[in-house]
């Protein structure tokens, strides 16, 4: 049942969020979750899979947008589609595996079958039961395609909104930053995973954290510095990074020691052969963010629920000949898949430049496992916090408390630190701690919640 916002309470709530005050119950509120389902997840572009997960004809993975299951399959001609995983006849899931290779999907209920491009090819007793084409036009039917599908750097997104703007337009200037994670060479990235697990936390908390919470790092992640896993997130160092926001997403960075494009990428552990490809794969402005500004991307989020992270931990015991720790970078993509107001399924992938040397891929995977994912030493402590927030947000008192999300803003709305005048990337960037990006994220959320969606067209199967 769609929930209509009661005008006063919701307009007040959205106004509060927009001025940087968060009614705490937004992190565990069933009524708001119904509205998010319809107006955030029914409207936005949602990440489903990466093309490298379905490299061969017939390869498929099954992924969801909340409760809607989609088969992401590469057909015999190489085209990747996302098809609603529901038999056109009685609604059975036509694919009950989550990954595999198939030329056809056959419904186990009555045997209707579909090619891996979605076309209905098998309909038992079509003539006897339906009177053939006169009763049911088999030849025209396909599994329902995702209302909108598009990709960027191999990242496949769908939107449940058939009139969604093109993906590239939706990403906007955030695409500039997405390239650092997903286009280190013309070969693009390849994904492994995902690890999947469920946490009793609201989906927004992770998305906001990755978008811009550099402030939590020195506190939450003290232990990983203490054990020598990652040297960067000391309190003094983390605040030297820039926070950027660019239309649909934003992220955090670390300030690099003085140096060149090469030496700075070597500092985070990239081998020269990869650095050389980054030089040609990234634009002049993208290179300048490293060379002139000296910032290296770390965590980021794309509205609403895709996050990325790039860190460079110490992957092995000992040190190199110069006595420096052997650090190596990794990239992770993660999706905060909402289950309910108080529960999220995390899908966490390891991503690596497809052209990277085999030894680099091996060590980068190891770096990922130590830091993020279901066993990651960073992620463990994050989730503990988020579960605690969500649990406390369910009560009456959380409806009376407005959390302060205004870090970086004075009472007169002037920034504590002015935006960087010279920053190679698009959008706005600030050095130091601030909740600029969390505010931007929740402002997009408020924009979605405020606007109802036009009802989408219905599809009638085989009707006269």
């Amino acid at each position, binding site marked *: 049942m769609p929930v209509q916002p009661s005008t006063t309470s919701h307009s007040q709530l959205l106004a509060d969020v927009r001025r940087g005050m968060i009614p705490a119950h937004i992190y565990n509120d069933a009524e708001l979750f119904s509205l998010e389902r319809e107006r955030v997840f029914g409207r936005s572009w949602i990440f489903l899979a990466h093309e490298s997960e379905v490299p061969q004809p017939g390869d498929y993975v099954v992924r969801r947008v909340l409760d809607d299951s989609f088969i992401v399959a590469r057909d015999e001609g190489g085209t990747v589609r996302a098809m609603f995983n529901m038999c056109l006849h009685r609604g059975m899931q036509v694919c*009950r*595996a*989550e*990954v*595999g*290779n*198939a030329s056809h999907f056959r419904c186990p209920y009555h045997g209707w079958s579909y090619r891996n491009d979605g076309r209905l090819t098998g309909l038992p007793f079509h003539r006897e039961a339906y009177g053939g084409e006169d009763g049911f036009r088999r030849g025209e039917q396909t599994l329902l395609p995702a209302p909108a599908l598009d990709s960027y750097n191999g990242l496949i997104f769908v939107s449940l909104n058939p009139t969604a703007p093109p993906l590239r337009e939706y990403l906007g200037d955030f695409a500039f930053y997405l390239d650092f994670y997903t286009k280190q060479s013309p070969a693009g990235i390849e994904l*492994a*995973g*995902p*690890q*999947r*697990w*469920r*946490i*009793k936390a609201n989906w927004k908390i992770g998305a906001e954290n990755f978008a811009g919470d550099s402030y939590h790092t020195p506190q*939450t992640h*003290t*232990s*990983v510095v*203490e*054990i*020598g*896993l990652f040297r960067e997130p000391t309190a003094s160092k983390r605040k030297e990074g820039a926070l950027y926001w660019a239309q649909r997403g934003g992220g955090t960075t670390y300030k690099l020691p003085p140096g060149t494009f090469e030496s700075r990428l070597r500092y985070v552990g990239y081998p020269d052969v990869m650095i050389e490809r980054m030089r040609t794969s990234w634009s002049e402005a993208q290179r300048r963010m490293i060379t002139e500004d000296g910032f290296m991307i770390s965590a980021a989020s794309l509205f609403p629920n895709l996050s990325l992270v790039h860190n460079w931990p110490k992957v*092995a*015991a000992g040190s190199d000949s110069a006595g420096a720790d052997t650090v190596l970078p990794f990239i992770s993509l993660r999706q905060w898949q909402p289950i309910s107001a108080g529960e999220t*399924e995390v899908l966490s*992938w*390891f991503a690596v430049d497809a052209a990277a040397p085999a030894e680099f891929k091996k060590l980068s*995977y*190891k770096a990922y*496992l*130590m830091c993020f*994912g*279901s*066993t*990651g*030493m960073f*992620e*463990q*402590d994050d*989730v*503990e*916090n988020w*579960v605690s927030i969500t*649990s406390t947000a369910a009560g009456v008192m959380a409806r009376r408390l407005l959390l302060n999300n205004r870090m970086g803003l004075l009472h007169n709305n002037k920034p504590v630190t002015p935006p960087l005048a010279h920053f190679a990337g698009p959008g706005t960037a600030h050095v130091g701690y601030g909740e600029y990006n969390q505010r931007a994220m929740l402002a997009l959320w408020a924009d979605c919640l405020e606007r109802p969606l036009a009802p989408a067209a219905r599809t009638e199967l085989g009707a006269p």
Partner: protein
Amino acid sequence: MTARLLGSTRRAGSALPFSDERHLQAHQFLVDEAYLLDGQDYPTWLSLLTEDIRYLVPVRVTTARGAGFDTAPGMAHFDEDKYSLGLRVARFATEHAWTEDPPSRLRHYVTNVRCFATVRVDELVVESAVLLFRSRGDVRESALVSAGREDLLRRDPTGAAESAGHWMLARRTVAVDESVLRMQNLAIFL
């Protein structure tokens, strides 16, 4: 050092009789280990792992019967060596490993133990089932993980290992029985 894979140490024959001393020692090893893991005595646990330990927990996936695989290629929950396990244990010794402070209440139920001789007298293959109960805080729902394990035990040549028969864990592969874990993390070991 290259970790020796299980395949290189094939099982010699069917499961040992439950009265065999090697079975009894292996069973005791697993039970003693369960108490160490329940009590989060990780430094002692680490001392029972060989230097070339490989601790692997693949990600299980749902696939069609006949697909020929049921784990996610190239991905695991844990894929550890002595260095990374050592770091994880060192982290719990800091005062800032929030995810286990307050600590979980843990109970590893170990059952279905069977033991196989190998062509090497100093190595045994041991299979077991483990059910982990984990409770955090006072009001949160508890969580369970069910898994099968295949271990390679190797006798400590120095005789220093303080375990039944001086056995040490050289390799463990854990097949968790869920594709999507219903637990906030695996900050614990199986």
